[in-house]
């Protein structure tokens, strides 16, 4: 179960990063008007409670849910996602995507344009500029995004219950079970929490090391 929690959190973080970086990159090069519209679009769903959004995903992904009805209409046929690990990962990606997007976007927005010009003056093409200039400079944003997605993903609990059909028990569920759920045992719950906290701290420490010996911008 420790393995399942960390595996799913890892997938969710990786997918979030893969989705967020290109979006952030494109948006950061748009005009301020477009950027502010984008920010509003990103923030509006966050005004709805997390639990309700997850319930909505449950209705969408059900075997007779909205997604499958649409697919059947299009003649593609049903897919079965609900109650699998994939559904749980999807729930995590959806709920925590903004925490990855925002820090990356902020860093990219602040990127000094003259550096890009300097790079191309010195003969670097677009790919090279991205790899040698843009990406290294955006690392602090990426790292704080990774932390902000990984930490809540690894400790999440309701998502696995709603989208995983209660069959993919994660660490967060185990802790919840000890405090509010079917087994009232705060001692075990506290012990698991502390172990998890330590693991998360170690992960953050390691990530900090990657970020050039822990620049203060990278974490909080």
């Amino acid at each position: 179960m420790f393995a399942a929690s960390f595996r799913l959190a890892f997938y969710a973080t990786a997918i979030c990063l893969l989705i967020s970086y290109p979006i952030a990159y494109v948006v950061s090069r748009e005009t301020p008007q477009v950027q502010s519209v984008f920010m509003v679009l990103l923030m509006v769903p966050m005004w709805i409670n997390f639990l309700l959004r997850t319930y909505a995903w449950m209705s969408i992904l059900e075997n007779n849910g909205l997604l499958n009805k649409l697919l059947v209409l299009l003649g593609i046929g049903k897919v079965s996602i609900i109650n699998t690990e994939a559904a749980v990962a999807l729930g995590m990606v959806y709920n925590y995507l903004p925490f990855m997007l925002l820090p990356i976007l902020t860093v990219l927005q602040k990127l000094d344009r003259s550096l890009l010009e300097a790079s191309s003056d010195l003969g670097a093409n677009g790919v090279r500029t991205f790899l040698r200039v843009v990406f290294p400079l955006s690392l602090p944003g990426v790292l704080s995004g990774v932390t902000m997605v990984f930490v809540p993903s690894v400790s999440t609990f309701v998502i696995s219950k709603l989208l995983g059909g209660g069959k993919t028990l994660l660490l967060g569920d185990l802790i919840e079970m000890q405090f509010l759920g079917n087994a009232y045992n705060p001692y075990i719950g506290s012990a698991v929490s502390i172990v998890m906290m330590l693991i998360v701290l170690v992960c953050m420490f390691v990530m900090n090391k990657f970020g050039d010996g822990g620049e203060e911008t990278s974490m909080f």
Partner: protein
Amino acid sequence: MKKFSKCLALTLATAASLSLVSSCQPAEVVNVFNWGEYIDEDLNAEFTKQTGIVVNYKTYTTNEMLYSTMKSGGASYDVIIPSDYMVARMIEEDMLLPLDFTNIPNYNDIDPSKKGLLYDPDNEYSVPYTWGIVGLIYDASTTSEAPDSWTALFDKQYAGNILMFDNPRDAFAIALAVLGYGLNTTNESEIREAYALLKEQRPLVQAYVMDQVFDKMGGGEAVVAPYYVGDYFLMREDNPNLGVVIPKETTNTFVDAMCIPKSAKNKTAAEQYINFMCSTDSGYRNAIAVGYSTPLVSVYEKLKANDELEDICYPDDETMARLEVFINLPPETRKLYDELWAELMIDN
């Protein structure tokens, strides 16, 4: 700077008006902790209108959650509504106050068969709120014949279309019923046998659910699911193909009873509230809104007179005789349940 002083003035004005409000006579409050979707919500306002006591109403989803909330001491409630076995556990752990029945005259209306039950044999701590039965709900549009036995939940032909309780007591009760053991058994080998059966069932189960059952059965996601019969009526509104049976083996019948916890701050108001809930009018409105069976004789008569009785909610004596009420299990057995349940859930 000008802006700042404006802000300050506004803040001060707000603070002043707030303090004005709070300096009014504080209203008397009764804190009620009930199950979700388990009341005709207008009744709380009605109570306030009649008595002037404001009802602070909160809800929970399982007995275990209620227990841990009370035990962790973070909250203070005046009225709580645990089920039978949890009432017994709370009595055992000295968490409830004895009731003063002179303040609850409507208690006389409670059906004698719902008094003096195992969980509170001397009728000191609890007043029944509703009672009900765990039934087997099925989707008639996808089954060739209506199931009449719990074995449907373990039947390979429904693989992937079975929902199961997401709490150990109810889930184990079904396995024990299939095996022909008592639902309150403390015999470790019987419980382990039930565990083996649940483990065997796990690959067939679509999802372990509590409240999600409304969406899933209502949306035609699954074929069979065990749930509380009273809630079946809500699901049927979304999916008219649903049927419900009381399985032939045995099943759990439960009583949810109003109690006053030791930490209550306003016992008089709590007793007034309990009495109010036992009036014919409140009981009737609750029975209509909630769908569970009423323990009040006058309400039963009224439902009968209006032809609003659902037969499945009030089985005949012969059926009632084979149903079982949960009692509080000894700590060792509870521990065994918890361990086996965690093992069952972790098993991927």
